[in-house]
C-alpha cells in the first residue's frame, strides 16, 4: 500500500481499519507513528466536538411533547365524543323508526295479520260468553254502545291494533269466527274500505272518530255484518 493511499484512508476513516491497513501499520514504523498521532488527534477531535449538553434538555423535550400531545388528546376526545353522540342519535332515530313506525301499509293488511295471528285462540264452536252489558262497558272507551250483541259473541276485549288501543270482538260465524275491530280513527295508517287475501275478506267503515273493521272468511256475508254493526251502534257524541 502506497503512502498516499494509506494516509487518505486513515484520515477519512480512522476507525475503519481493514486488514490491508493493519498490515501496513505493522510493517512500517513511520505508518505506526502516523497512526498513533491520528489516534491522539481523533481523541482530541471527539472531545472538542462533545460540547456539554444542557442537563435538563431531555426533560424539557419530554415535557414539551407531553403538553403538545395533551392538547392534541383534548381535541381528539372532543371529536370522538361528538362522533359517539352522532352515532347514538342515529341509532336512536333508527330504533325509534323501526319500533314505532307502521309495518303494515293499510288497515286491511293489519287486520288480516291480526286475525291470522290469533286464529288458533278461537273456534267457531266456542260458546257465547260475553253479555251485552260487558260489551257496552268496554265500548264506553270508544264512546259508543250497542243495543244488541249482533250475534253470538264469543270474545270481547281490548287489543293492540297497530299501536293504538282497539276493541276486538269475535262472533260465531257460518263456518269460522267473524272478527270485528273497533279502533280510534288513526291518521297514521291508510284507510281501505275493502280488502281480502286468499282466505279472508274484510270491510272497514269510518265513523266520526272510530273505524269499525269486519273480517271473516270468504263465505261470510261481511257486508251484512257491517250493516248490522252500523244499525245497532249508537255513538254518545
Amino acid at each position, binding site marked *: 500500500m502506497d503512502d498516499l493511499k494509506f494516509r487518505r484512508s486513515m484520515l477519512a476513516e480512522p476507525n*475503519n481499519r481493514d486488514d490491508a491497513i493493519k498490515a501496513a501499520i505493522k510493517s512500517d514504523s513511520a505508518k505506526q507513528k502516523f497512526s498513533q498521532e491520528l489516534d491522539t488527534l481523533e481523541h482530541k477531535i471527539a*472531545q472538542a*466536538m462533545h460540547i*456539554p449538553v444542557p442537563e435538563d434538555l431531555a426533560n424539557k423535550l419530554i415535557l414539551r*411533547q407531553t403538553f403538545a400531545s395533551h392538547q392534541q388528546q383534548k381535541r381528539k376526545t372532543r371529536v370522538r365524543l361528538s362522533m359517539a353522540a352522532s352515532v347514538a342519535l342515529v341509532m336512536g332515530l333508527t330504533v325509534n323508526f323501526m319500533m314505532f313506525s307502521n309495518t303494515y301499509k293499510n288497515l286491511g293488511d293489519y287486520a288480516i295479520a291480526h286475525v291470522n295471528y290469533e286464529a288458533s285462540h278461537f273456534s267457531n264452536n266456542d260458546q257465547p260468553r260475553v253479555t251485552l252489558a260487558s260489551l257496552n262497558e268496554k265500548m264506553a272507551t270508544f264512546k259508543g254502545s250497542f243495543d244488541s250483541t249482533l250475534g253470538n259473541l264469543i270474545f270481547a276485549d281490548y287489543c293492540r291494533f297497530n299501536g293504538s288501543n282497539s276493541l276486538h270482538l269475535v262472533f260465531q260465524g257460518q263456518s269460522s269466527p267473524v272478527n270485528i275491530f273497533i279502533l280510534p280513527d288513526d291518521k297514521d295508517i291508510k284507510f281501505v274500505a275493502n280488502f281480502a287475501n286468499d282466505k279472508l275478506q274484510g270491510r272497514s267503515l269510518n265513523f266520526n272518530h272510530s273505524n269499525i273493521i269486519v273480517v271473516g272468511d270468504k263465505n261470510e256475508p261481511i257486508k251484512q255484518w257491517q250493516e248490522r254493526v252500523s244499525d245497532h251502534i249508537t255513538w254518545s257524541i
Partner: protein
Amino acid sequence: MATKQVRYEALVKALHADLYRYGYWLCHDKHIAEDLVQETFLRAWRALDSLKDEKAAKSWLITILRRENARRFERKRFDMSEYEEATISDVKATSSEQEIENYWLREKIAKMPEEYREPLVLQVIGGFSGEEIAGILSLNKNTVMTRLFRARNQLKEAVDDEPKLRGLHNG
C-alpha cells in the same frame, strides 16, 4: 398510546445529546441548537409512527434537524456563514489544560468550511459510516471520503503547527 410515549422518551434519552451537539455544530449557537432539537423532537413525535426501524432513528432525526435548520434560513436570513468568536463560550478562566485545548480545537472546527465540517461531525458524533453520511447529505460516497480526509487533514496540520503559538497565547 403509552407505548408511543415510551418509545418517544427512549428516543429522547438515547439521542438528544448527539442531536444537540450536531445542531450546535450546524449553527454555533447553544440556544438555536436547543430550539432546533426541540422542533426536531416535536416533529419526530408527530411522525413517530412512520419510524419503523429503530436503528434508523438517529439518521432519521438528523435528517429532520437538517431540514429544520434549513427552514430557519428560509424564515430569516441570518448571516451565519461568518463564524463569530463570541458565540463560543464554554471556556472559563479556571479551565484545565484539556479544556483550553478543546476550546482551541473547537475554534478550528468551527472555522472549517461547512462542507467539511458536517461530514466530520456526523462521523465523530453520529458514528456513521462514509456510506451513511453520503445518504444523509445526499452526496456520493467518494465526495464524502474526500471531504472527511480534507477535514481531518486540516485539523491535523493545525494541531501539528499550533502548540508553540498556543503556548504564546497562554504564557
